[in-house]
């Protein structure tokens, strides 16, 4: 952490941004190779070693594509909607400590843009905002597929927000902290939430993971895209880099959501045995640990994506309101009882 907040935002923020953007671009290449391997294909091979330059070629192509705005579209909304998703998704990463270290028996976060004391709320709020660009895009296009997709996206986004908040309450109750660093520090001290709270912690993690999938519009919750029925979903009418920004934001969202889940439930950068090492070594190891956990979650998201089928929109809402919401309330209640009785 650099003492000057402006400089800290610029330097650390720039670094986080660069890493996330690179990973986001590589994620699309990696997904293509991964799905190809899953399906008995080869995947991209031609551009660069193992085709690794493919996403950059795609981006360069998208930048030069013609920018078409439908005649009947709401031009202003249509034009500005693609600005938001990438911004919002990257913004989520502002409060996540990507590393950490022990000093004086206290766990400190490192490699983070800002140690905000209401970090969890910040993450949930930005994540809730994600439906707005989708809605703007779908509505402004004046395309019926986009509109249907946008309505589904909003309904799904707001519905899954609630179990997500409830799942996020479990580590908050356990740790008594609202900042992501605080939650991780408590986990470093007492043990990771998945393990520390038997069953409840794991269920909360699963719930958070599922709702993250839904918020990131990934199969089995990718109703807003739904290529096979709604052609291109909300981005049906978007050409070139505008559609590219929406697609990029989805990759980034899975990446960042994995990082958030790691921080909230898997102890973030904490691994046992760090205490006693020099600080720089702790930071390097915890950075590696954080990314290892994050990417493991990320891989599992895509594994699910390429092997599952898609829910229907009403089944999706049914699942959320009938099972996930009361389930989340139950998790919160049981955690509260456990904490009040001093079991954890």
């Amino acid at each position, binding site marked *: 952490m650099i003492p000057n907040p402006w400089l*800290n935002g610029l330097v650390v923020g720039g670094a986080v*941004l660069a890493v996330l953007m690179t990973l986001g671009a590589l994620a699309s290449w990696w997904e293509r190779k991964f799905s190809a391997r899953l399906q008995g294909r080869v995947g991209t091979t031609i551009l660069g070693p193992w085709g690794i330059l493919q996403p950059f070629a795609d981006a360069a192509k998208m930048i030069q594509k013609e920018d078409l705005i*439908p*005649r009947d579209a709401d031009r202003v909304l249509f034009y500005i909607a693609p600005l938001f998703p*990438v911004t919002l998704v990257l913004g989520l990463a502002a409060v996540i400590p990507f590393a950490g270290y022990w000093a004086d028996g206290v766990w400190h976060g490192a490699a983070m843009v800002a140690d905000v*004391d209401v970090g969890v709320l910040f993450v949930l709020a930005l994540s809730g905002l994600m439906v707005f660009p989708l809605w703007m895009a779908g509505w402004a296009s004046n395309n019926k597929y986009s509109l249907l997709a946008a309505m589904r996206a909003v309904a799904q986004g707001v519905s899954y927000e609630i179990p997500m908040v409830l799942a996020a309450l479990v580590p908050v109750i356990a740790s008594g902290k609202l900042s992501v660093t605080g939650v991780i520090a408590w986990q470093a001290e007492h043990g990771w939430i998945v393990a520390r709270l038997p069953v409840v912690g794991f269920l909360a993690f699963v719930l958070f993971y599922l709702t993250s999938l839904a918020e990131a519009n990934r199969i089995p919750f990718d109703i807003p895209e739904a290529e096979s029925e709604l052609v291109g979903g909300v981005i049906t009418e978007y050409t070139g880099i505008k559609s590219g920004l929406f697609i990029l934001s989805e990759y980034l969202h899975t990446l960042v959501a994995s990082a958030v889940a790691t921080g909230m439930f898997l102890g973030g950068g904490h691994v046992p045995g760090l205490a006693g090492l020099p600080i720089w070594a702790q930071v390097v190891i915890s950075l590696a640990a954080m990314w290892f956990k994050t990417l493991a979650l990320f891989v599992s998201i895509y594994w699910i994506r390429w092997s599952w089928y898609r829910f229907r929109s009403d089944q999706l809402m049914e699942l959320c309101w009938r099972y996930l919401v009361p389930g989340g309330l139950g998790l919160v209640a049981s955690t509260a009882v456990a904490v009040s009785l001093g079991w954890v």
Partner: protein
Amino acid sequence: MVAQWIPVLVYLSLCAALSVAMFVASALLSVRGRNNTPATFDNYECGEEPDGAAWIRFHPRYYIVALVFVAFDVEAAFLFPWAVNLRGAGWLPLVDMFVFLGILLIGWAYAVRKGAIKWQ
């Protein structure tokens, strides 16, 4: 207190600048077709002429979902201050919140029974 938000602000502006930069690059480099026809700017509808605008009046059930969401989201927001201060606060806040959650659950059961959240 405010100082901790400065890096977030800087970082968010960086993110926004990135999106804007892509827009600018696209504006500089994108091409314009010479042979565009009126059909180019029609809405895509599988190659058909669109039948009217997509802006229709929505079915009320969309709003019901939104209303139920608002109710639950406000409750969830109330839960946070309680959650932070629960440890070591004794029995009373727990019972209070259980009463609160119980009322919420009754509302939930009513909504489910009435089919208010049934999407279609």
